[in-house]
């Protein structure tokens, strides 16, 4: 109970990942969908850092580094696309994006 091991961190990471998945499945607003994807990426980051610490290996921390870089570029491109969509259609709901006309 008092000794925090690797499994504690993996369970926490799984709980956060499940919360993120619930968010992805129940959100309709695309901006809030992006929030849920950020939660997914962060939960995986915790697992990487914990494994890196308990196995004495730096590879996990480097992967966290790259995951953060990918998350930042995802936000930039995603928000740009959302702005273009909002200028054209006036809303960012998923239901209005079911057709793929250009």
């Amino acid at each position, binding site marked *: 109970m008092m*000794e*925090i091991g*690797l499994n504690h*961190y993996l*369970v*926490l*990471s*799984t709980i*956060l*990942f*499940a*919360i993120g*998945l*619930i*968010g992805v*499945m*129940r*959100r*309709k*607003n695309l*901006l*809030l969908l992006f*929030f*849920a994807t*950020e*939660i997914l990426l*962060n939960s995986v*980051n*915790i697992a990487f*850092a*914990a494994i*890196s*610490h308990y*196995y*004495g*290996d*730096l*590879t996990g*921390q*480097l992967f*966290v*580094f*790259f995951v*953060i*870089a990918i*998350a*930042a*570029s995802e*936000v*930039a*491109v995603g*928000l*740009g696309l*959302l*702005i273009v969509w*909002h*200028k*054209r259609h006036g809303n*960012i709901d998923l239901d209005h994006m079911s057709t793929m006309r*250009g």
Partner: protein
Amino acid sequence: MFEAIAFYLFAFLTTLMFFITVTTSQALHALTALAAGMIFISAFFFILGADFLGAIQIVVYSGAVMALYAFGMMFFDTTREVKEKNGNKYIVFGLSIISAVLVVVIFAAPIVTNNIKALYPMVKGAGNTQELGMVLFTKYLVPFEVAAVMLLVAMIAGIVLAGKKMDLSLTLMSDAEIIDAKKEKTKKVLQ
């Protein structure tokens, strides 16, 4: 002792904040709870001895990403209540639980077989940032450069997508020009 207290405290706070993020109907509450959760996650990095990552987490997420999202919220008029999908709840929660179990299996499989060896072990007598730099600029130099190019591409894409027609200022135009621009905009925005 203190590690356990800190772990449980921050685990509870992070879970609570992210739960608020995915369940609230106010976009502003979701944004604030997400920012708080990001900062609480950096506490785990500090507990785990990854000081550099903790600092990066605070700077990148609470600084850059949250600023971008705040800008997006101002742009998209998300002050109204967010309607949610009303799908079959049992399917949604069942899929969530199955996916979560899958994640546990993925992480537990290498631990059960117990064949993980440290590829780049931590160096004695060096700080965390120094260790990371030593591995990053030797073994992971090419992925580092590729990530830099990817960030450059993302920046250019953001400017190209969001900066279209931003040279027009509505305050400096006359009413007739604004109406003309609006007609043109509704006709075609993406060329």
